């Protein structure tokens, strides 16, 4: 364990080293170029735009919530510092941090309500704020704020030699890049990637999507505000609403991020290295005759990159790099997988699946005989259509409970009410004596309710192992431990041969198994399984059935929704029949399927009259 921890520390340090080296090299280059104003200016611009784009990348790249009004935070940071310096004579060194705090507070005000919005609404909401700050600041007479010159001196962040600003900016860039790198390799980073790809699934796996997004948003805002200060002191000298709240800032940051590579550490840096000098060169050459030429370049770069190279330069480099590197590694893994498969009989089979010692020891602490879940008088309707009506159900502990019913009988709605995707209109859901009626899915997952989905919900652009890790993070904050747990589960479930493949390429059977693995990694006491056999052939259905039985034998209560009544009868210990949002039958499986009401629900009254009476 100790060596593992040390190894992880080492790898983290190794991750940070290149950033430090890059910034040190940047400082050396700047030092040896000498005090040439023009070159240093461009160097400073590159560093600052790289820093701003990387900060933006946290919320918009990693968390996937594109904040179209990001200039709000750059501007807030700069304006706060300049105003404090101008009117209260507070040193910009202190001011920049106050600016960052103000930006974070504004981000909190903007983010708290808007992060609940999706897509278009989120974009409009965030861009509306800077668009309106612009005229307000102009009205207050702050359209142009010259930074008072108090003589060159360190305390007022006013240097004759541009190199000082370059050093400050490099320190800032290092801070931003290291932050991004740490996020990338932490539980937080995994949560962001997960919620970016599939918010529903992330919630179901115990990720509090809202708070994670908010945290990323605040972090992004604070870092952007720091950039704003250095930008206005090092380059602008006169802070203007146009230069700090203008739309062109957004286009610059977006194009640098997208051209370089969304959600990468080095992408924005690389893109800034050639986009910024190109823009500046064009501006110097043609700026007099064509004043908007620089923004035209950024606009074109943005459009072209979005259309033709959405993964960005670094994304493409990384992919080809990995393709070259991973060939030998992949073949090795496949061998290990082959060995495993030989032991288990050539196929990934269900026979070896029901061994969940680890999971069992972790979750089922107390044994009592009462029902694990009580659903009390639940009503749920959608705009007048009753999906669930006066539903009363008790789920026996450590058993497989089957729920059957024709289409639209409220089965999936019932699941959604249990684990918090829907809130019932009336009634209570009680799990292990905790009232979870108003719990969100991530909270339900925390108390021990796992879930698989009718339409498979996996994180497509993550590897199989990473998918399982998202589940494991529900109980385990440490990345390497979560990784170990996930490998264990992948082994047990027979997914090891695919562990490092992207989930998007899995077969139907494998995605089903992956969903089970991920749900088991959250260490649930109760597992909700929604139509596990849909889309599988009879043999695979049988295997899934055996697996579900195995899970229940290990002490986890399972509720299964299934259309294929025959398969369900084989595995269920207890069965509940639903029809039109009401419970119409409950009992042993054989009783429920011979219940006249159930037969009628499935096959209609005529059929019942003809066959049941005889």
């Amino acid at each position: 364990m100790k060596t593992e921890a040390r190894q992880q520390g080492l790898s983290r340090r190794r991750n940070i080293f290149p950033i430090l080296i890059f910034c040190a090299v940047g400082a050396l280059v700047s030092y040896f170029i000498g005090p040439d104003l023009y070159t240093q200016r461009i160097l400073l611009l590159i560093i600052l735009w790289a820093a701003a784009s990387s900060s933006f990348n946290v919320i918009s790249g990693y968390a996937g919530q594109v904040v179209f009004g990001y200039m709000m935070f750059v501007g807030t940071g700069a304006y706060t510092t300049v105003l404090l310096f101008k009117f209260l004579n507070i040193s910009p060194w202190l001011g920049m941090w106050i600016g960052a705090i103000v930006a974070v507070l504004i981000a909190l005000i903007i983010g708290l309500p808007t992060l609940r919005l999706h897509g278009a609404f989120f974009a409009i909401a965030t861009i509306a704020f800077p668009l309106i700050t612009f005229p307000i600041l102009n009205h207050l007479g702050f359209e142009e704020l010259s930074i008072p010159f108090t003589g060159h001196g360190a305390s007022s962040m006013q240097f004759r030699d541009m190199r000082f600003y370059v050093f400050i900016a490099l320190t800032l860039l290092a801070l931003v890049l290291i932050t991004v790198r740490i996020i990338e390799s932490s539980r937080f980073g995994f949560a962001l990637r997960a919620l970016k790809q599939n918010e529903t699934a992330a919630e179901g796996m115990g990720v509090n999507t809202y708070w994670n997004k908010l945290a990323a948003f605040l972090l992004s805002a604070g870092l952007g505000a720091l950039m704003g200060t250095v930008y206005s002191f090092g380059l602008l000298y006169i802070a203007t609403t146009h230069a700090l709240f203008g739309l062109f800032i957004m286009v610059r940051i977006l194009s640098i991020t997208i051209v370089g590579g969304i959600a990468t550490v080095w992408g924005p840096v690389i893109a800034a290295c050639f986009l910024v000098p190109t823009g500046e060169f064009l501006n110097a050459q043609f700026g007099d005759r064509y004043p908007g030429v620089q923004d035209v370049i950024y606009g074109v770069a943005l459009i072209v990159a979005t259309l033709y190279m959405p993964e960005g330069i670094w994304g493409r480099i990384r992919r080809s790099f990995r393709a070259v590197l991973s060939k030998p590694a992949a073949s090795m893994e496949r061998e290990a997988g082959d060995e495993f498969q030989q032991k288990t009989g050539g196929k990934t089979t269900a026979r070896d699946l029901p061994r969940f010692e680890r999971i069992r020891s972790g979750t089922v602490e107390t044994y009592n005989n009462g029902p694990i879940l009580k659903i009390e008088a639940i009503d749920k309707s959608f705009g007048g259509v009753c999906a669930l009506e006066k539903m009363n159900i008790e789920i026996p502990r450590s058993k497989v409970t089957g729920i059957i019913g024709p289409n639209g009988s409220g089965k999936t709605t019932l699941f959604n009410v249990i684990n918090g995707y829907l809130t019932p209109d009336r009634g209570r859901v009680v799990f292990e004596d905790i009232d979870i009626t108003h719990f969100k899915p991530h909270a339900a997952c925390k108390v021990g309710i796992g879930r698989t989905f009718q339409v498979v919900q996996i994180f497509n652009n993550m590897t199989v192992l990473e998918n399982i890790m998202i589940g494991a993070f529900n109980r385990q904050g440490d990345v390497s431990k979560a990784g170990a747990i996930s490998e264990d589960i992948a082994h047990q479930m027979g997914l090891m041969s695919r562990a490092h493949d992207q989930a998007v390429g899995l077969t139907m059977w494998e995605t089903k198994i992956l969903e089970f693995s991920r749900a088991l990694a959250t260490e649930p006491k109760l597992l909700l399984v929604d139509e596990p056999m849909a889309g599988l052939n009879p043999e695979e259905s049988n295997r899934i059935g055996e697996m579900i039985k195995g899970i229940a034998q290990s002490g986890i209560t399972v509720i299964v929704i299934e259309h294929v009544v025959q398969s369900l009868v084989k595995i269920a210990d207890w069965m509940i029949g639903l029809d039109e949002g009401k419970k119409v039958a409950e009992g042993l499986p054989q009783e429920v399927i011979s219940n006249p009401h159930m037969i009628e629900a499935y096959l209609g009254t005529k059929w019942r009259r003809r066959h049941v009476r005889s």
Partner: protein
Amino acid sequence: MEILIESIISGILIGLSYAVLAAGLALIFGVMKIINFAHAEFAVLAMYFPTYWFLNWWGIDPFLSAFIALPIFLVLGYIIHRLLIEKIIGTPEAETSTLIVTLGLSLLISNIILIGWSGAPRIINQPYTMATWSVADVLINRAQTYSFVISLGLIVGLFVFLNRTFIGKAIKAAADDPEGCAYMGINLHFVYALAFGLGIAVTAAGGCLMATYRPFHPFFGETIVIILFASVILGGMTSITGALLGGLIIGLVQQVSVLVIPVELQNVAVFTILVFFLYVRPQGLLGKKGRAV
């Protein structure tokens, strides 16, 4: 009292031109579920070309230009959709990607205007620009009145086109159920591009009308884009009727609020409405609340 009535009347007059601009945006969002961030910039482009330059070169009246702009921008919108938007529609990130692309496009358009025709603010100088009617001590701007009438005509025309012609019906059907349309033999590529072109054309015509009574500059779009967003959100995003209503309300609020707050801050009132609706009633005035999951 006269001032209040004047504000209300000019609110309605200006509101309807916002409504025309917003209708184009709502049409595009309704059909393709994408936001065209460059929407206001197309209106600004139309203020320069054809409106301003046709008047200066050949003395063509801006109100005539509004109708000349329709086919020009229909084709322009069609081409832009084929070249840019079509490539990203249907991808999982379509909503964000189109916003990014159109944001780039908006900057591109305004800077091309800046490069081509300089940043100097322009005014249309026609006899009716500053002229007024006076009805019982209430002064009404003539240019705004003419714009109002033509806007009404445009709106009626748009509704007739969408409800009475085959292509219009195809556009409405594609908004409801694109897959079903494709199965019925409707060419979605064509319908989408046409809807995009139509949205741009209506907005461009609205821009021409607005140019008759408002000075403009290459970055004028940044000031009206928030008004357009507020109008469509008020109207529930996808509904053209809603956007018209939204535009009218926004126009009224803006003009009446000037009585209380400084002119430069008239958009603050608009912004307040926008934020209120975003947070409290994102489905807008006419929209229905959707299901949770």
